[in-house]
């Protein structure tokens, strides 16, 4: 896990004054892993999500089934990338975390 420290308020949106001062990022690079490992390991990571962490997934194919599972579990996500370069996906359970801002770090969105 890589802790991310940001300036207060910079990456937390919303009117919640008790914005997180640090967000831990769970990382998984699933490129090159053979089915079903990418999905299985991603779901394990989704289960580890709490109020103070994100899950950053890099994967070679757009993982529609995983995003459907995330939606069922009330986990929000933001996606960028392509099949050629790989997909970056950020997942969060905490809706106060501005994923659109975070995703810019990985793709020029």
């Amino acid at each position: 896990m890589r802790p991310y420290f940001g300036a207060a308020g910079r990456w937390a949106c919303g009117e919640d004054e008790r914005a997180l001062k640090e967000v831990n990022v769970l990382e998984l690079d699933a490129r090159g892993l053979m089915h079903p490992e990418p999905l299985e390991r991603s779901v394990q990571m989704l289960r580890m999500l709490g109020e103070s962490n994100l899950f950053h997934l890099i994967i070679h194919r757009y993982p529609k089934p995983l995003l459907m599972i995330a939606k069922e579990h009330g986990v929000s996500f933001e996606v960028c990338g392509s099949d050629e370069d790989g997909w970056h996906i950020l997942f969060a359970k905490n809706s106060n975390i501005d994923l659109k801002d975070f995703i810019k770090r990985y793709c020029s969105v």
Partner: protein
Amino acid sequence: MRFFLTIPFFGILTALAIIFSDSHMLGAWDQPHSVAVVHLVMLGIAAMAMVGALFQMLPVIAGAPISEPLYHARWIHLLLILGTLMISAAFYFNIYTLMHPAVPLLLGTFGFVIYLMLTKLFAVENKTSSVKGMIVSLLSLGVGLVFALLLTAIFMGADLGLDPLLLRSVHVRFMLLGWVGVLVMAVAFQVIEMFYVTPSYPKYIRLIFPLGALFLLLLYTVSIFLDSVLASVADILLALLFLVFAAVTIKRLMQRKRPVADATVWLWRSAMLSLAFASLFFMLHTVTGYGWAATASALLYAYFILSVIFAMSYKIVPFLVWFHLNAKGVIETPMMGDIIPSKRAMLHLWLHWALFAAGVGLFFTPYAWKGVGAVIAVESILYGINLFGAMKIYNSLKDKGHL
């Protein structure tokens, strides 16, 4: 899942139909028992797998969800079972009055499947090569059904002024190559890369082959009724198209990132090798007129279809069980590899190869059909055990989710 779970039962029926038929008649494709067996395989096994796969793949691969899928799947499944049993029984037991309810039932059900799925697929904005391939496949199914209707009308005594042998040749090509063959291509474009982490298919194959197959089928249809040599040219080009597809797929499988081969890799390899040789024998038959080459081509093509169905099932079924349990929030969801144990999948692979060996025996004695039937029966039973085992896991856990 209900479509896949029905396949073992039709496999057993196919086996029984083969075992209790006159072995000397089975190789003659216009004999009623042969026609019955062909329809048991094509409707009871292949169609069940194709329709079941489309129901699952449209939302995930094509981004085209079907509204009320469970409701539609239930009655489509039931009517397909009834129609298949009736039409096969009509041919097998010479009870041709069964054609009266069977044909409208099957035409109506398939017609609805085509309408339901085509409307969703045409509405997809960025159509991938897989989506386009599925559209071609469903259109081909539609054309094949039209020719089935014409054939049935003639069979029941109508005088349409058309040669039934020509109608049959068009019907067979659209069903086997246009519907099943192109659908396998469309699915392979996605799943070979997805499941086995291979490079994607070359652009020329993805862009041209499905539409090329449709064009050649239409060319064949027009040419055969005009008694033109272009019909043979279309046949050879179709065979070449599928030969190239098979060769490229085999190459892709050799380029897997992880070299360990499970049962499904070997099933895909078996499928593609059979497709390649089926294509070669078909070209030989077209050029020389050798009947045995046509028979070899047909049997190898049937083996290709079965191999793909099994290869896909052993990936799709564990995935579906795993996916739906996770979507329900079941913490104890097993890993996909534990839903159908790899040892049982490998056992099925060996049985499937035994089926090929039994089929080779057909070139020495027609009594080898009994062996073919026996192996199909055992293979179907094992396949059923594997699928129902997966369903048992799902049923035992589905109510334990927190969602």
